[in-house]
């Protein structure tokens, strides 16, 4: 086995071990609550995969996490820790919503590309400002992006309660868009081909998310812009030596981060709720950070990690529904353990696993 293969194997095993640890401890907690952990696991997996509606929800959540995780990953490759996916998604969603309200008589074939553009612009601006502050004044992006999450939140509360809410309505939401700007939902798409599946919020945006994964992969590792981005992120001195404009790359990275996070709005607003709602992005941005880190900031890893969190969200909901003693906080606990082991304690078992792998596969060296 080559050095590289061994390394890949170690990384995979480390991640799997960490996840198993998280599930093991969750299992112990469930057992301590007097429930059967094995049954809980089966319930969860059944809830996430066992029937088409569950699977639909799982993939619907996955779609959201892919966007925000990519929005984190791009920044990470440029040496940035973008905590602002939450706010960027919120503002991106606002832009998508306004566009749909404005152009609701237009064809989806025109509105969809426009929605992509406006969520890039608005989400991008929301990322660009912290990027600019970092590049020009050295303000730390963790601080500024968190602040921008709050700013976004306040703006949305104001807009939804004072501007966008129809006068006769009580809840802080916009009115529904006309149906012709809705993104086709999966059951509709399947019905075009003669398949009958249960209605879920899963919609065509899922395919767009997969496409984004591919684009990010090619962008980061195959283009000169990605090359510059990674150089800035790994060794700023070398970047300056190579004549790469560090400030420009930081700002560009934050714009791309914001744009990708903004796509959450397309999935949520255009694809599912069909109106602008308060806190539609709740938690997706923050979960995206964990997804990206667990997926090692690589599109393939992000896909798998986003799927895992989709399962946790949907399967967890099923779990708290099925077993009364397990409420939704239990689900948060499981998610927290996954983040703890796969994120914060990532290298806990690494030395042992490395030694083990080397003993098994490299004995002859």
């Amino acid at each position, binding site marked *: 086995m080559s050095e590289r293969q061994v390394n890949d194997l170690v990384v995979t095993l480390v991640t799997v071990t960490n996840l198993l640890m998280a599930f093991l401890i969750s299992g112990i907690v469930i057992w301590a609550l007097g429930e059967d952990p094995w049954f809980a696991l089966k319930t969860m997996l059944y809830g996430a995969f066992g029937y088409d509606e569950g699977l639909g929800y799982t993939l619907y959540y996955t779609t959201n996490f892919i966007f925000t995780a990519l929005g984190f990953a791009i920044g990470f490759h440029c040496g940035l820790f973008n905590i602002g996916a939450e706010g960027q998604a919120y503002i991106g969603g606002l832009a998508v919503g306004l566009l749909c309200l404005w152009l609701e008589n237009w064809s989806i074939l025109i509105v969809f590309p426009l929605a992509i553009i406006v969520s890039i612009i608005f989400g991008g601006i929301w990322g660009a400002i912290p990027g600019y502050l970092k590049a020009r004044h050295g303000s730390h992006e963790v601080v500024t992006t968190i602040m921008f999450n709050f700013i976004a939140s306040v703006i949305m509360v104001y807009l939804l309660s004072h501007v966008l809410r129809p006068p006769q309505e009580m809840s802080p939401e916009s009115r529904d868009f006309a149906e012709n700007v809705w993104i086709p939902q999966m059951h509709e798409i399947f019905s075009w081909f003669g398949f009958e599946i249960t209605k879920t919020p899963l919609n065509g945006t899922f395919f767009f998310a997969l496409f984004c994964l591919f684009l990010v992969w090619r962008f980061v590792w*195959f*283009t000169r812009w990605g090359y510059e981005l990674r*150089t800035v992120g790994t*060794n700023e001195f*070398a970047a*300056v*030596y*190579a*004549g790469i404009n560090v400030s420009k790359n930081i700002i560009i990275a934050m714009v791309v981060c914001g744009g990708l996070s903004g796509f959450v709005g397309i999935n949520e607003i255009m694809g599912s709720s069909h109106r602008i709602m308060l806190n539609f992005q709740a938690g997706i941005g923050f979960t995206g950070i964990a997804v990206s880190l667990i997926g090692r900031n690589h599109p393939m890893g992000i896909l798998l990690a986003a799927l895992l969190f989709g399962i946790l969200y949907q399967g967890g909901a099923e779990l708290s529904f099925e077993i009364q003693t397990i409420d939704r906080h239990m689900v948060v606990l499981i998610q927290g353990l996954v983040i703890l082991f796969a994120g914060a304690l990532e290298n806990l078992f690494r030395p042992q696993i490395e030694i083990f792998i*080397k003993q098994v596969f490299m004995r002859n060296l």
Partner: protein
Amino acid sequence: MPILAIQLTNINKYFGNVCANKNVSLTVKSGTIHGIVGENGAGKSTLMSILYGFYKADSGSIGVLEKQTTIRSAHDAIQAGIGMVHQHFMLVDTFTVLENIVLGTDSSFSLRESLHASKLELKRLEKEYHLEVNINSTINKLPVGLQQRVEILKALYRGAEILILDEPTGVLTPQEADHLFRILDELRGQGKTVILITHKLREIMDITDYVSVMRQGEMVAHRKTSETNREELAELMVGRKVLLRVEKKPANPGRKILSVDNLNYKDDSGISRLKDINFDVHSGEIVGVAGVSGNGQSELLDIIAGINHLQIGSIRINDHKITSESRVDAASMRRLGIAHVPEDRQRIGLVTSFTASENIILGYHRDLKYNGLIEMNNDAISKSCLKQMEHFDVRPLNPLLKASLFSGGNQQKMVLAREIERNTDLLLVGQPTRGVDIGAIEFIHRQIIAMRDANKAVLLVSVELDEILSLSDRILVMFEGQIMGQVLAKDANERDIGLLMAGISKETD
């Protein structure tokens, strides 16, 4: 008095699968200066780290002053009577000399009392070994040579009978180095034992009594210094014959390529780093910039390369004039015909976590030949990387290997390959052979001379005076941001340059 200071027997040390020390045995006689030479990665530092308790040997035994000892930490080593002067000093910059020496050995709870007690002891040590230094001045106000003296005092104060010095002359002027050697001589006279780790063979010949040579983790030879010579030692280190002097034809300078006019530079904290720098570099010549590290050479290179912004004065490259108003960066300077081998290849010249082929395009990643419409042309990049690696004999010949996995010498060859293959009018080279083994040094020197012989201009910055003397056609000496003097290489001698490096020009002599 024990006759043997150090007895290491069959020391083995592995890092993973890499063998750093293999059956190393070493005997050092009391009251001698014992040199240990070897290329980078030969295992000298590992061996000394084992002796000083930083690493634990996998097997083997250590005897200090004829007693079997287990050394688990630096504390144990000090207890056993071993002192170490590291290459990078372990001093608290803002403390006084006295505070630094007493640090960690305070004899009383009251700092004042400890300081007083140690003062008397220090006075005695200073007298005994001629290590005069003002014990009340703060470290950051002292020149490097004196800081080193403080390190030696510190070790003696802790009762060291055996002193290990790791590359002690790297930061010193020739005069300071001579002074250090006189101190070491004094120590030897008083019965102390000195172990000197170095890669400078001249120092070995000048000062040591015995010398041991390491190669690839093994001890390959022990010699009495008076019975060996530089050529033999070099051959033992590398394992084959090496040319210590590079052959080169007389220079044939042509038109002016670079001219630097009245350059001044202040760093971010407002300290003046360059003062009124004026010089020219012509095609077909190598201009060497000598000086102790930190006297403005780095800033000079960085400004010409476009990394630091030019503040006062101007630079002319071919026919392009660059002033403080010009908006230039490293990319635009490259387009004007500058190639730059930076002083610190790992921090600046390479992205060590990138592959060799990603590194071979660093700075040239926007070139048309490396790019398609949207994506980069990976075929062209690998091909060009392979060609350059072959040309410069970079081993292993694998463009997909991470740069960090190449040895220092091969990393440097990679950077040189990238910059020299550009065939630009002007080549800036900083510390071309720092941390590079002797075998590769020879190769790198030949490449730089070949560049000159192809009628290109070369500006060379190096703190290795030997290197400057053997490569340059003309030598500029820098001290505290100024050019102290200019010497033609054929008239140059080490003493004169050493004086200029210490800031003493002929006029004031």
